[in-house]
């Protein structure tokens, strides 16, 4: 809405599963075109935080804003459903396990959301899908079912699928963790391309080198809190917190 407000704003995000509090009050601002990486040990709450942004997880406390609109609005019932569906159309999400629709071809995976949700004609939606598949380097794979694609190809289709809704921001949850090492680069390349195009992104990743390369800002999480945050040169190269150092040592030792 206003260019002054951050694209994504999180305030005091808390989330509990029963008595287990997995997010203990998290604040984050991501300005338009900025890229924030979230790192941290397994179980620290990275996915939960990312999934809170588009409310795939319901938070217990706090506020979530997208481009000046409160995501976790006070609406209820049908009104809330309509609201959250509209919000989610403006945020793309990419999952570790791709979650492509196996009964649809790559082209259909990408074209179905603009067709069903934005009322685009089949021809329009397919033209858009073709452009996006070309963008992620899969112009020749439109007719292929996901089962016929490699992991890296699947993830690139998944990115194209999310982009097809022309989102204001993209959320990546360990997009390359399920990939064979030799397929990681092709996905990272697409993400870098998006970064160059000023896409606003939150990236949960375990790849420190990639985080260092693309991020404007890095968050190190542990035990449901942000232990340390700042520019990548600081958090990844000269961390001030012992927990961050310990984590990086373990990670770089591998």
């Amino acid at each position: 809405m206003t260019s002054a407000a951050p694209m994504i704003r999180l305030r005091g995000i808390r989330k509990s599963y029963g008595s287990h509090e997995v997010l203990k009050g998290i604040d984050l601002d991501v300005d338009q075109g900025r890229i924030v990486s979230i790192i941290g040990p397994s179980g620290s709450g990275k996915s939960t935080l990312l999934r809170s942004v588009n409310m795939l997880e319901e938070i217990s406390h706090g506020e979530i804003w997208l481009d000046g609109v409160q995501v976790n609005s006070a609406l209820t019932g049908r009104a809330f459903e309509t609201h959250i569906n509209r919000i989610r159309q403006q945020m793309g999400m990419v999952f570790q396990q791709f979650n492509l629709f196996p009964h649809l071809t790559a082209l259909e995976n990408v074209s179905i959301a603009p067709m069903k949700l934005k009322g685009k004609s089949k021809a329009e939606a397919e033209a858009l899908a073709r452009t996006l598949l070309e963008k992620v380097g899969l112009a020749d794979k439109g007719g292929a079912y996901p089962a016929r694609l490699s992991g890296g190809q699947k993830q690139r289709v998944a990115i194209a699928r999310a982009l097809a809704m022309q989102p204001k921001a993209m959320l990546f949850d360990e997009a390359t963790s399920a990939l064979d090492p030799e397929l990681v680069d092709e996905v990272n390349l697409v993400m870098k391309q998006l970064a160059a195009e000023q896409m606003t992104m939150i990236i949960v990743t375990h790849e420190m080198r990639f985080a260092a390369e693309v991020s404007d800002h890095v968050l190190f999480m542990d035990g449901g809190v942000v232990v340390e945050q700042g520019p990548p040169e600081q958090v990844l190269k000269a961390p001030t917190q012992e927990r961050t150092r310990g984590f990086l040592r373990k990670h770089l030792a591998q």
Partner: protein
Amino acid sequence: MLDFSVLPPYADLLATGALWTVLITVLAGALSVVLGVLLALVTLYGPKLISLPLRGIAFLFMGTPLLLQLYLLYYGLAQLGVLLPAFWTGVMGLGVHYAVYNADIFRSAIQSVDEGQMEAARSLGFGRTAALRHFIIPQATLTALPQVGNNSIILLKDTAVLSVLGVAELVLNAQRGISATYRPFEFYFAVAVLYYLLNLAMEWALGRAARKAEAIR
């Protein structure tokens, strides 16, 4: 002695019977699939107030003979003043009977669809119902296909039961031929062969569909 030359004059009768058998199978089969999906959705997502009684009724359908259900529908309702044509009674009875079995298959097929599918759909902005319709149910249908297909083959054979209501399907028409010729063996044998051929055709079609479904996995 056996004499199959009694059959050709009745070829039309048998062919008409076969046609009705196919028609009943298609209509009742379609009903059993559509109703089966609906029942599965209601038991999975509907309010308990509706889903629990429905499951109770489902057990009644599974626990009693199809023949009895058809008698109840046809003669029972007639006694109460509700007169349904035998053909539609049969289609409804068979359709509902197999819908109950198909519902169980669809229910577990829907549950077996990976949670990530619903999440991906929701993350794109699809509502729950739209996600079910575009992503979950189509995939569940592919999973359910072999078992639902088997049920449809059993349904095809069960259409013979409708002969007791006077529906002119294969068996009843064979009986008409028999009463004219006193040749039960030839007629029943011919009918058996016809059922077998229909079965083969169905298995062939299902096999094709299953191979298509398999290509997607």
